[in-house]
């Protein structure tokens, strides 16, 4: 009886201890293998706590061991335990984010290149993965609250601006838009008809272009046949002779141009001298200058003409005064 009682007590005690120990281990996620330790640094960690899940591509690969503020106080170091055979991306980073809407957070290992928008913290220590934390729901709701307030303000202003008159104007505007759309529809219909005409013209043009192309092809074929013919060589020879004649003509013209150029130089010299002479005449230098510049000469000449006229008149009237005829 005593032994049976002892066995019963022992059984119950063992059962109770087994339930406590095994249950605790099982609820913690089972016996853990030798895990690989990682560290990540972030500006803050939100609501991440030790024991949170570590995920890679959505699969749970470990847990958060500890969360500590870095010695310099500039970052938070997150200690992670992950499966030893886990192959990390070359640019591995850790994103701390809510796992659900109820305050449980997770650390997700990912490729930094895939999430360039997040500001991962580069901690100045080798082997520490960069990490970033998403804003938690309270911050998001606070921001949403701000947005809601602004929307309220906008709607209030809209109510102020939206009077009966505004509504009437809007109604008129809508009517106008209807009329405009009808006009546009008509224009589009017309344009469509014109476009059809244009398309037909284009088709005709394309046909003509096709014919022209065929004609051009024939012409090119003829040119090819002409080029292939030996007469072309003779024509090219004649052209060469013509070109050499032209070259000789050009040379002789160049020589003539040289003569012309020396004649022009001589003419320039002559004109220069003539200019000097005219300048001297205008300035009254020399006999011609004085002659041109002195009015007494002209007056004398006029008087001489008058006297000559008087003389001629006198001669006509009295020829014997001046003429005498004798035969012997």
């Amino acid at each position, binding site marked *: 009886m005593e032994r049976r*009682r002892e066995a019963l007590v022992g059984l119950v005690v063992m059962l109770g201890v087994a339930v406590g120990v095994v249950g605790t281990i099982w609820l913690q*996620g089972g016996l853990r293998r030798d895990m690989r330790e990682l560290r990540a640094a972030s500006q803050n960690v939100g609501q991440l706590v030790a024991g949170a899940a570590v995920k890679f591509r959505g699969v749970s690969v470990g847990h958060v061991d500890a969360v500590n503020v870095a010695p310099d106080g500039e970052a938070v170091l997150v200690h992670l335990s992950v499966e030893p055979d886990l192959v990390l991306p070359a640019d591995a980073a850790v994103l701390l984010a809510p796992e659900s*809407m109820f305050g449980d957070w997770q650390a997700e290992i990912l490729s930094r290149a895939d999430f360039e928008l997040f500001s991962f913290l580069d901690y100045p220590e080798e082997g520490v993965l960069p990490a970033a934390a998403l804003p938690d729901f309270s911050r998001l709701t606070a921001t949403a609250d701000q947005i809601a307030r602004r929307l309220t303000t906008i709607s209030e202003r809209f109510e102020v601006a939206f009077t009966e008159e505004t509504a009437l104007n809007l109604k008129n505007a809508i009517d106008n838009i209807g009329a405009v759309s009808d006009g546009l529809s008509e224009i589009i219909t017309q344009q469509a008809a014109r476009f059809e005409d244009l398309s037909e013209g284009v088709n005709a043009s394309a046909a003509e272009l096709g014919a022209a192309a065929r004609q051009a092809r024939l012409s090119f074929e003829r040119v090819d046949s002409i080029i292939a013919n030996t007469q072309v060589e003779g024509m090219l020879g004649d052209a060469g002779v013509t070109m050499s004649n032209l070259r000789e003509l050009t040379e002789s013209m160049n020589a003539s141009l040289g003569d012309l150029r020396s004649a022009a130089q001589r003419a320039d010299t002559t004109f220069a001298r003539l200019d000097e002479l005219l300048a001297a005449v205008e300035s009254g230098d020399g006999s011609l200058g004085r002659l041109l510049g002195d009015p007494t000469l002209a007056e004398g000449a006029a008087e001489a003409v008058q006297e000559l006229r008087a003389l001629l008149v006198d001669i006509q009237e009295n020829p014997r005064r001046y003429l005498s005829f004798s035969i012997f």
Partner: protein
Amino acid sequence: MTNWLLGAFAFVGNRTVSGLQGMGRAWGLFLGATASIRNVDVWLPHLLPQMARVGVASVPIALFIATFTGIVMSLQASYTLTGAIPVYFVGTLVGKTMILELGPVLTALTLAGRVGANISAELGTMRVTEQVDALETLAYDPLAYLVVPRVFAAVFMFPIVVLLAIGIGIASGWFTALQLLDMSSPEFVKGLRLFFEPWDVWFAVIKSVSFGAVVTGVGCYFGLQTERGAEGVGRSATRTVVVASMLILCLDAFWATVLL
């Protein structure tokens, strides 16, 4: 008017003196029992039978209550958690509630009725039939003989019974979730593990130890204070259940404040 006031003051004074006397006697019992621990030869042979009575014999009723507690918790959690709340939170609620609160407290309240009243009635009968006096006459230490093995048995066995109750409660809640709530095992286990901390189990164990000490200590106290024959025995048993239950709830709040 004056007589009424005088009567009121006298009632309060009488209750105060009675309360202080009771506290003094309880403190004396505690000091005497602590001093009696040294009489290992007296209490150790009685420890195993008491462990069987207090612990093993209490397992069926504790597991019965835990089973239905788990079922009700699972159903009520699914009824409460609707809309945007994921269904796996049923597992979280069942696990957390069973480990932290319902497992230890309901088990302790149950054992307060079963074990506390049993001890009180047993010791009260011994008191009114002067068996306790006979022990003293035979130079036995009645505290080492009667109190210490019972308290130690409860302190050892209460956590065991509570752990079994927690396990059965969670298992029944799990089974209910699978059979009645169209949940899958991975969902329930996910919720169960979501906020689990090993400290929760230690918290339950610490509370259970204190509950065991209180239930058996109160039972021993009222049993040894029993007077006036069979009527007194019944009154002691009733008082034991009431006071032990109140102390269990007070201790529950105390530990929640101190340890969480």
